[in-house]
């Protein structure tokens, strides 16, 4: 069971949250100009790392707000939670 630190509500039990997958996937600004391969990359391809992962969570049974979490997919440790308008606290090469 994960203990997830909601940026607004503090640490809460995982059962209050729902999972939103990989974070920071930006929707293309001009979808019609993309090739099929580029669209597939946006739509389906994921980094799916074994290690640190930036991911989205929704505090569904709490404040009902989305936010991002840096969680280790191998150890399940959580080292940061940050709002959608905040920059990730760790650099890309620290992932």
């Amino acid at each position: 069971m994960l203990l997830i630190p909601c940026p607004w509500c503090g640490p809460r039990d995982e059962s209050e949250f729902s999972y939103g997958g990989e974070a920071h996937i930006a929707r293309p600004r001009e979808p019609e100009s993309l090739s099929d391969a580029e669209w597939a990359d946006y739509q389906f391809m994921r980094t799916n790392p074994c290690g640190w992962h930036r991911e989205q969570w929704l505090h569904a049974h709490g404040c009902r707000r989305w936010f991002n979490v840096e969680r280790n997919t191998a150890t399940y440790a959580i080292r940061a939670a940050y709002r959608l308008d905040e920059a990730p606290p760790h650099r890309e090469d620290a992932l």
Partner: protein
Amino acid sequence: MQRYSALNIARHAATGHRHWEPAWRQAAPRRRYRVLIVGGGGHGLASAYYLAREHGITDVAVLEKGWIGGGNTGRNTTIVRSNYLWSASAALYEQSMKLWEGLSADLNFNVMFSQRGVLNLGHTLQDMRDIRRRVNANRLNGIDGEVLDQAGVKKRVPFINTDPGIRFPVMGASWQPRAGIARHDAVAWGFARAADSLGVDVVENCEVTGIRRENGSVVGVDTSRGPIDADRVGVVVAGHAGVLAEMGGFRLPIESHPLQALVSEPIKPILDTVVMSNAIHVYVSQSDKGELVIGAGIDAYNGYGQRGSMQTIEHFLSALVELYPIFSRMRLLRHWGGIVDTCPDASPIIGKTPVKGLYFNCGWGTGGFKATPGSGWVFAHTLATGEPHPINEPFSLQRFETGALVDEHGAAAVAH
């Protein structure tokens, strides 16, 4: 290979069973092979076996980072069926089913395949319409199936709760009589032994750490036991396909999730079939030892930890005791997790990758065990000829660009 037979058992009994040979050699990796298979689970070993048997290619090594039977092949809930909706899936899983039916004899190894039938329950009118559609589609594809009403389910599982007042009442089911269960680790051992006897090197404790490429073609792999060259490399690493893809320099439409299962204390025979429920998400069968083997859906988050959250277990156990109140006071013996690679359309990826000579067989989600022989059979063809077999052609990585997905979320019979 030392054959297993009644006569041989009697012969060895005379010497106290002290002289049985190991089932397969402890092979050390050579410097070069024609074909390398990364991943010594059921699918990888089956690929090696059919590569040797069907295509005569025996210059093959299977590289396993742990030991044979220690990964997902030994962690699943052992269910085998082929009642998938779409023709592409039906062809793949039915090919597998046909191989299952002769597998113990083929391998000279008892995989304890027991065709005790599988029920997929329906709990709403829409479920029942979907079940009727799926059974009709199955029968058109030559796969056995029947639609049962509530009384038909009750006849096969007399203790199931058919009270109309429960949250998800049992309205009926699909029934595939040829489906069933098999002993999962015996499948890995049987394929390892049979492949080894045809000359394949089964190399344990050999972790692949890199995929070596030159000019866009694969030339070999780096491993914890040194580099190995090969003309072709097949990657069959359920749970770690994304990690291996990263070594190959591309991404996959796969997310890895924990999937949990558990077994109860052993009891006398009570359940002689397999019962699955998509809507309330639990499936159960009884092993030959008498344990109830219970599984359900994945944990929602990405994870490689081979463990999940207790709330997921609570969810499927509450479904279990609602459907089968008789099990409510049973004790659980063990519980564990494996890692499953889920695809957006709940169908596998079997075929070419952006790297020439590198082939992937992955993305089986929660349902790979049933496909073990068929998956190996089509992947062996792909590795031998460099092209997919017509059966695995629809399961290319390319389908995520063309949009020709094989959407089995509903018909996979367990929500993914």
